[in-house]
């Protein structure tokens, strides 16, 4: 697995410089946050709690964007936008289920890349 398939490596280098010795801690924090968040997002999907799912996707989008995990951030944005502004009765739940599956898969890949490269 290649780092640059899942991260914007140029920005990542810059982030490493900024965070210095706290970089490792930041990555650990990000992983823990994701592991805590994903099961909650799945529960929200299953109970069709659209508002909650959107909020968590929004937050996850920001955090993954900030650690330069661009594809993961983009997937979260798709989840967020699949709910924002859409009337509750017209939410495309099967599509959201598909997107959440992709978020979970991407997060697994990110974790794997992290353990190998960072």
């Amino acid at each position, binding site marked *: 697995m290649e780092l640059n398939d899942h991260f914007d490596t140029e920005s990542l280098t810059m982030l490493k410089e*900024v965070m210095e010795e706290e970089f490792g801690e930041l990555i650990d924090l990000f992983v823990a*946050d994701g592991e805590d968040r994903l099961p909650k997002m799945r529960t929200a999907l299953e109970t069709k709690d659209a508002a909650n799912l959107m909020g968590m996707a*929004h937050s996850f989008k920001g955090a993954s964007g*900030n650690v330069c995990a661009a594809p993961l951030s983009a997937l979260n944005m798709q989840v967020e936008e699949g709910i924002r502004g859409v009337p509750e009765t017209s939410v495309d739940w099967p599509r959201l289920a598909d997107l959440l599956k992709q978020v979970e898969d991407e997060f697994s890949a990110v974790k794997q890349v992290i353990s190998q490269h960072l």
Partner: protein
Amino acid sequence: MAAIRILIADDNQVDRKILGRILQKQGNEVIEAVNGEEAVRLFHECKPEIVLLDVMMPVMDGKQAALQIKQVAGEEMVPVIFLTSLTDAYGLADCLESGGDDFLNKPYNPVVLEAKVHSFYRMREMHQTLQRQRDEIAIHNEHLMHEQEAAKAVFDNVAHQGCLSADNIRYLVSPLAVFNGDVLLAARQPSGAMNLLLGDFTGHGLPAAIGAMPLAEIFYGMTAKGFGVRDIIREVNSKLKTILPVGFFCCAVMVEMNFERKSASVWMGGVPDCYLFRKGSGELEVMTSNHLPLGVLGDGKFVDSLQEFNLEIGDRFLLWSDGILEARNPAGDMFGNERLHDVITQAADADRIFHDIKHAVDAFQGRAERDDDITLAEIAMVEPPQVEALARSQIQAAKSGPMDWSFSYELGPQSLGNFNPLPLVMHLLMEVPGLKSMSGQLYTVLAEMFSNAFEHGVLGLDSKLKSTPDGFMEYYQQRQQRIDALDDGFVRIRMNHEGNGLEGRLTVHFEDSGAGFDHVAMLNRRKAELADVGDQQYSGRGIPLMNQICESVEYMGKGNQVRAVIHWPQEQE
């Protein structure tokens, strides 16, 4: 640059950690909050200088927090920057509405972040400087107002009302006019004649007001001693020239109204055209400034020549500074000469003119911002004031003051042309308490005697000239010509006083170098007139007041000498 204290609020700890780290590395002091509520609390506690807020947060979102923080900050400028993604275009307007100043996009770019923080910090500093300066200006302004009030109080003591409240004067002047540079003064001479001066100093505020003090003091002081417009205007000019800086001067018009003689002398320098309204004919005569303003020329170059007018009862002068011409309406047009002229010529009758002018200017200005520097005065010719009745009780019974004295005072041609001896003479007479209470009458007598000796005796002017308007002008032209050409001649004044403190007798003797006149013939003629038509008509060029006051008036020699005897206390009528 000192560390900037920055409050950041983001519920996502990854984001918060990165943002905090970047800001710290850039030398700032960072305070972290996990939601809007904590942000508001920490804002109270830590007084941060800049606030960065995530929009979506649990408990209290960024917009709510921004509203509360801005409210707490009040007048202080605390920049609030919202943290968003480029894609979060939704709700940006809401963010601004809640008081946000800018946005910062995720993921964070340290260079952009640093630039924003610094630019907002500079803006905040500028805002603080502005507020500090605004506060300073407010304090200065308050201080200035206090000073002006104090200065006005001093000025009001110097430039009291004078006789502005006299029946023949109407005027309009703003209470703080002195700080617009406008001055209006009026006072009576001991003889009953009235001096009125309307002045307009250059500039505004204290520099404009400062010259008004000596002006008022000279005006009142000299008027009380019996000086007329010529001497006062020269003295004021000389004083202002000495004390005012270059470029500061006083445009002025001064009128001396002589009610006994029904005449007026006017000096005008630098003021716009004023008018003389003739009540009888309804004619409006334009009076134009023919001198430079006061305080421009040194005493040597100053010209005190006057415009002379003979007047009828009800004739009136209309005087103003340029404020009335420059009054503006809401469209910015000036009131101007033409409108002023129209108002006056269209007035239903003379007594309405002043009121009509005031009304027209008010209507013209409408709701436009008033400059409040309109100064306007009207002074009318009326019957002479009643000679003050003299109560015996006013006379001090004590043997105070000089009783037995005499002097002789001779004026040669140079002095006669330049100098009025009456105030000095009056000053000596006023040392006698019994004479002091009849200063008005005394002045009238002396003025009449001096003017006869000088104008008819030394200068040889014919008093008959003054009986027609043209002759009146001619008279004053000749008078000036002859004064300019005068190289010999004299007026000799001799006075003698005796008394015991309870009563006294003043003998006044005038002698001039003129040819005199046939006084015996005149006396006979008068006796015949008296026998003919009685006492009433006996007032041609004569001076009924003199006979009323003097125990005796007698001509001597070839008619170039006259002696008047005045007894005090005067009998009450």
